[in-house]
């Protein structure tokens, strides 16, 4: 009788008798919601439902543009959305120009109170039925976001893990720690261009909303050549931290990619 049996042989014997017991069973594919930007969708696969997604970056890095794109896509696809606007920075005129359907958007305006913003988010998540809930703490000082206790994020993650709700946290610095299933870091900087300056493009497409009165804006004649935007913002680096909602240590992959939205 052989005293030593190789691991491979042992596994083969067990497998032949009990089936694929050593195979790691993958979780079913997580449902996602599109961000409305094909380049980011191709990179990330979309925003995972039932999990937290975090978008962070400095001012003028494109966080709000991405947020508008998410809201526009979700609201026009009959998802009920909610925006917890901690510092009351949401601009309806710009949002309407981005195509957001306001009939499906619940806007909660905060007065800079971080605790109220988190409580409001918690109430919305517990109500259920929202397809997209965005917590905008992008203008909160970094020293304050660092003080957010982890139990809030765990609570949010636990609340939505069995629901088709997407939570998106917009911030200046990463703050959800290991609770986020998807983390997007926006490092893009604003870019100006004097090339191809056409008279019609002199004024950026500021927020054009359907109105019944004639616009009264006019360009003041100046001697200086007009300055225009080639494209104001670009997202040049996106860091995607893909991980399972409940087991961050498993199946973790970190990669970088370049997305130019010009």
């Amino acid at each position: 009788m052989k005293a030593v049996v190789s691991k491979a042989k042992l596994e083969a014997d067990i497998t032949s008798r009990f089936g694929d017991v050593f195979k790691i069973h993958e979780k079913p594919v997580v449902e996602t919601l599109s961000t409305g930007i094909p380049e980011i969708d191709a990179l990330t696969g979309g925003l995972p439902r039932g999990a937290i997604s975090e978008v962070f970056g400095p001012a003028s890095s494109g966080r709000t543009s991405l947020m508008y794109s998410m809201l526009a896509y979700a609201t026009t696809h009959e998802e009920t959305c909610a925006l917890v606007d901690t510092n009351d920075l949401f601009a309806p005129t710009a949002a309407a120009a981005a195509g957001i359907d306001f009939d499906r958007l619940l806007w909660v305006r905060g007065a800079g109170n971080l605790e109220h913003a988190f409580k409001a988010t918690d109430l919305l998540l517990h109500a259920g039925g929202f397809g997209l809930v965005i917590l905008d703490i992008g203008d909160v000082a970094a020293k304050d976001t660092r003080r957010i206790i982890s139990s809030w994020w765990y609570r949010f993650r636990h609340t939505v893990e069995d629901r088709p709700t997407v939570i998106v946290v917009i911030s200046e610095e990463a703050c959800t720690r290991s609770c986020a299933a998807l983390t997007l870091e926006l490092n893009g900087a604003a870019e100006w261009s004097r090339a191809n300056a056409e008279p019609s493009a002199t004024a950026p497409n500021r927020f054009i909303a359907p109105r019944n009165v004639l616009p009264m804006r006019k360009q003041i004649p100046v001697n200086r050549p007009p300055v225009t935007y080639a494209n104001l913002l670009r997202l040049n680096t996106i860091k995607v931290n893909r991980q399972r909602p409940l087991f961050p240590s498993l199946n973790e992959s970190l990669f970088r990619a370049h997305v130019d939205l010009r």
Partner: protein
Amino acid sequence: MFACIHAQQIPADLSLPEFAYNFSPVVEENRTGTVVIDVDGCELLFGSAYQLANEISLRAKKAGPQGGVESTVSVAIAANPDAAIHAATRLPGITFVSPGEELTCLGEFPIDHLNYSLVKVEKKVADEILETLKLWGIRTFADFASLPVAGVSERLGQVGVTLQQLAAGKTERHLNVKQPAPVFAYSIELEHAITELEPLSFVFAPLLHQLCAALNAHALATNELSVVMQLENQATHERKLTLPHPMRDHKVFLKLLLLDTEMHPPPAAVRSVSITCEPVKPRVLQNGLFVPLAPAPDKLELTLARLAKLVGEENIGSPALLDTHRPDAFSMNRFTLKSENRRDGKGAKNRQSAIGNRQSLGFRIFRPPLRAVVQAEQGWPAQISAWGKRRSVYGKVVSLAGPWRTTGDWWRGDRWARDEWDVMLEHSGQQAVYRIYRELKTEAWFVEGNYD
């Protein structure tokens, strides 16, 4: 046994059915001035049938406040409601028709007075049959009842047989019971005034429970609750809860009412509480299989109420643009769920394609705008410094665009006129794009927000 009460004329402010409810809960209003009540089981209250008829006749003469109708009524009691109606409408005073002897009382009535509407026979058909009967020499109910049933059926059909049974007082039918109008109002008077909110919930709960039970019994719901509280200082505190969808869940109502009372507490102790509602048909909605989930209406209402308590009623809702060019002009509407159900999804695709053609540029607006100090070089902004309670903006202008002059509402006191610039500021190696403007009236500079 059935009793028919017939009054030739009663005052306009009094109701004969209301008078009849004093004797029996089963009341049929035959036509104006005639009601039939089922008196079975009334013996313990009013004695024999004759005593009951006598009581009805006496009480009817009393004034309205004393429970009467201020008029003389004729009362007939019979085993058949139609026989009672014929007797009461033709004979004054009190008439008692013994079971099986209807023709003794009704037999001499002219055939013209046969009330064919009781058996739902059309006037045209009934007139033809009555004309035929007159040609046959039939003059009274007894004559008609004495005809052989087979012969009547052969010559006049089933309608003729039905009319013959009506004349003989032998029809069989149930009373078409008139239901009293439901009242969805409940109130309670307290022995001691309540000064705190928590005990008030124990007052609201039973009232709302009764209200929802009444709504449920009538298969109704409500979308408007009115609460009236009489206060100790003789004042009245009224609150009205308007719901976007009809509901009848007393637990949801209680939570909504408590949240509303917490936000709008009564100024003094509460002596009595009255709750009424406007009944409407309940909401029936068939959701599509492929439509994304939406919050349940009752949960959404509770959530909105809790959010309103947290951040204020004016700070939650759906934004709506105003028809003006005034910067940051919008209004907040109440957030309600849209029951849009497009199975083909064409609408969403169309709108999505429309979005793709637009240039969506994120903008974060500062409310209120930051007062700024702008250093200009040759008339162009070169350095900007602005401080506020929550944020500060400062840096050197590395690029700029503008100015764009906007003016509007010159006919109003709050007109605006300003030159807007889009500037890129650099500070500590970080660059950000802001919108600044100079008010033409005050020559003051402000930072309105930043592009993001």
